[in-house]
């Protein structure tokens, strides 16, 4: 270290000048923003619930079940997703479809999100493109384990995310979740 650095004082002043420059620069930009100049940003903060950064279209968010044109689930209860799931969080009960050309349909399709690891293998494994993870919904915490269990009808009701990954359907609140 040079002598000036060992004495520390000049280095202290340099550091203070740097932080003071940030302070006054940001303060001026905050003031300009408060006075209506919206292009001035005094901070890099994104104020999360109100402001969000755009989500990637590849983001794996809350699952949804894709519907046929008649509204019934595309799922044919082949159990591929249930088999491939590393967390064993998918539970399917197969049933008869009224259309004789379709062999099976899921009577129940339950995902325990408390176990789900969001690997996306279920989406990859599905031969019918019946399950997708493109709702853009990320906030579905719950006070109980039961509140993390999403049933067939809830998953069927969800819509794909809109532009910039914004959810278009509201966050589903399961019946036993106490908000």
């Amino acid at each position, binding site marked *: 270290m040079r002598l000036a650095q060992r004495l520390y004082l000049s280095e202290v002043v340099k550091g203070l000048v740097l932080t003071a420059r940030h302070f006054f620069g940001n*303060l001026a930009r905050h003031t300009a923003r408060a006075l209506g100049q919206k292009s001035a940003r005094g901070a890099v903060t994104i104020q999360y619930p109100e402001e969000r950064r755009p989500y990637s279209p590849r983001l794996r968010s809350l699952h949804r079940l894709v519907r046929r044109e008649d509204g019934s689930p595309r799922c044919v209860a082949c159990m591929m997703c249930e088999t491939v799931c590393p967390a064993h969080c998918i539970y399917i009960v197969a049933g008869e479809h009224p259309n004789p050309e379709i062999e099976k349909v899921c009577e129940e399709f339950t995902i325990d999100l408390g176990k789900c690891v969001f690997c996306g293998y279920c989406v990859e494994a599905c031969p019918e493109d019946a399950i997708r993870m493109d709702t853009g919904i990320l906030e579905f915490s719950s006070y109980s384990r039961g509140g993390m269990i999403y049933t067939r009808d809830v998953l069927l009701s969800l819509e794909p995310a809109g532009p910039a990954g914004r959810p278009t359907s509201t966050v589903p609140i399961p019946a036993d979740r106490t908000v």
Partner: protein
Amino acid sequence: MTDLGIALGRVVFVLVFVLNLGGLMTWVERKQSAIMQDRIGANRASILGLRLFGLFHALADVIKMLTKEDFCPARVDRMLFSLAPFVSTFFALVAFASIPFGHTLPIAGREVLLQALTFDVGILYVFAMLSLGVYGVMMAGWASANNYALLGGQRAAALMISAEIAIGASIVGVVMVYGSLNLMDIARAQGQPLLPELFGRWIPAWGILTQPLAFLLFLTAGIAATKRTPFDMPEGESEIIGYFVEYSGMKFGLFLMADFLETVVVAGLVVSLFLGGWQVPYLGPDGFAFPWGATVPLSHLAVSLLGVAAFVLKLVVMIWLMMLIRWTLPRFRYDQAMRLGWLGLFPLSIANIVVTGLVLQWWSTW
């Protein structure tokens, strides 16, 4: 009766002023650090949708601290354990009493000195209170029945001694220059022109100009006395957590408050010793008298209020500077702080005394 009222008024004013400033410091700390670091800072607490730049977070903090569990571990010395935070905060609060926040104010036909307590040994009183404050910290460390807390308390004592010596020695130069231990007299003397034979009436004799080295030493030692980063060995968040490791709720809050109050006291001391106290440049008892001959006559009341405003402004600037230092510098290691105190600040302040004495002697005989 009027005397009693005036005395009470002075005390209550200073108490409320310092307490509120201490409470505001939590907001200043959050917001200033955020703005320095390109963040926004706490802004969510709101009353009826009104956020006021996060000012309500101070209120929310108090409510949180008051309603938290006041936990007392099993083997602590209960009396000392409960007493420690109060001792800490009390001495930090009363230390401000002899710092003048203005000159005089005409009330009920008499000139009231704007100072909670008028002492001829005001400086010594402030230092006594500041160093008594460390007893609270040591008590907390001792009574907590926790080795980390004890270490924190011992470190606080060691830091306080090394800082205290430098504080005491560095202001001796100021006392020699202005010839008084009374903070009001020192503030008054700083309104005189500096070396009128050389500079005329252009430069006021503020302490920072007559004693620049003492200013640096005092500021450094004063920041050390507040126990905040870069001198946060007693807490040592990254290594020992510190003397308040066993505290919770409002008792913990009081320790936090004591640190903020000490910052206010040290800032107040720096202002009254080195930045002219309540002096406004070129403002005399009858109004402004500029060195180029212009005068602006002002009423006595206006002069008094200008003085108070000047003191508050200087105080705020000093607190801002101390916050800037706290959020800029990395913390000293324990041995580095000791070395700085004993091998840096202390010898330099002794040298400052010697040089000041020689210069004063030379000046008076010249």
